[in-house]
């Protein structure tokens, strides 16, 4: 079941713009390794779920997968063969706003080789270029 918010204050949103780079959620926080986006994009709930399933099937219940993004933006789409006007359409799907640097998934409890292979499978499902990252230095 793709992720979506339990309730929202407003049913529809304006599109907005994806400017700049990620300043939050741009490092591995929970797991040992992460998959980081290198581009800006809207990541749909179905794409997030497809990535999770791809990794879970590969890992076969080893380790723990963390999903670091949540699709909280409703995206509306007019039905086919509809004339223009008559107001904004209903929400078609939900999307997460991804900026360059956003960590999309994290994996804990597996070795680096296995994590790389799992992330390669997730990256196949992503609409953006991604890279493999580890935990950063702590002082």
């Amino acid at each position, binding site marked *: *079941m793709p992720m979506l918010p339990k309730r929202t204050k407003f049913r529809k949103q304006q599109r907005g713009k994806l400017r700049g*780079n*990620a*300043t939050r959620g*741009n*490092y*591995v926080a929970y797991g*040992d390794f992460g998959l*980081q986006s290198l581009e800006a994009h809207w990541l749909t709930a*179905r794409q997030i*779920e*497809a990535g999770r*399933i791809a990794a*879970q*099937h590969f890992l076969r*219940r*080893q*380790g*723990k997968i963390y999903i670091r993004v949540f699709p909280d933006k409703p995206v509306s789409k007019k039905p086919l063969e509809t004339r223009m006007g008559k107001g904004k359409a209903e929400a078609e799907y939900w999307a997460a706003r991804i900026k*360059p*640097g956003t*960590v999309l998934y994290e994996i*804990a*409890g597996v070795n680096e080789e296995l994590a790389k292979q799992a992330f390669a499978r997730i990256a196949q499902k992503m609409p953006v270029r991604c890279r493999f*990252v*580890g*935990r*950063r*230095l*702590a*002082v």
Partner: protein
Amino acid sequence: MSHETPTLPAERRERHGSRYAQRLRKAGRLPAIVYGHGSDPMSISVDAKETLAHLHHGNHVFNLSVDGGDTETCLVKDLQFGYMGDDVIHVDFARVNLDEKVRVLIHLDFHGTPAAGKKGGFNVVHDLAEIEVECAVRNIPENLRVDLDGFEDIVHVSDLTLPDGVVATTPGETLVIHVQAPVGASDEEEDGEDDAGAETSEG
């Protein structure tokens, strides 16, 4: 546990601002600042490759020799990262005495598997990657070895064996690792349905 303090040659920075800092980084230098102990703060730059190699090795304390002058013992107080989250772009050094007590984050180096984690399907989840400790500057360990073989399924901070003179400031009841049981049969069915749904939607 204590180790030799590496000496870093540093150069004073006369010009400030992001443009000059960027030029330094392109030239293989790392902008930094030294402050503390009542002296004026001083903008410096250090060799990026050498400094990062020491930091990755777990060093927290350096002897800084600014423009070939006397050395000052400094503790790495803070690191600034670039937008991709992992490239160090600036270092904060705080002047310290070797006997001064400081709080630092120490990386945990896990070895072995707890007894419960050896069963099929059970996963060892690392809840902490670093712990905060308080100790004298000369006693700061590079990392903390955690042997999991002697534990059953859960390790708390209070269970860790720390070197002499090192006290954990992370609360004792904080989880370091725990063993996660395999998902139950009912969850498996549910997951299977999910997967099937996702596959049809993909096709």
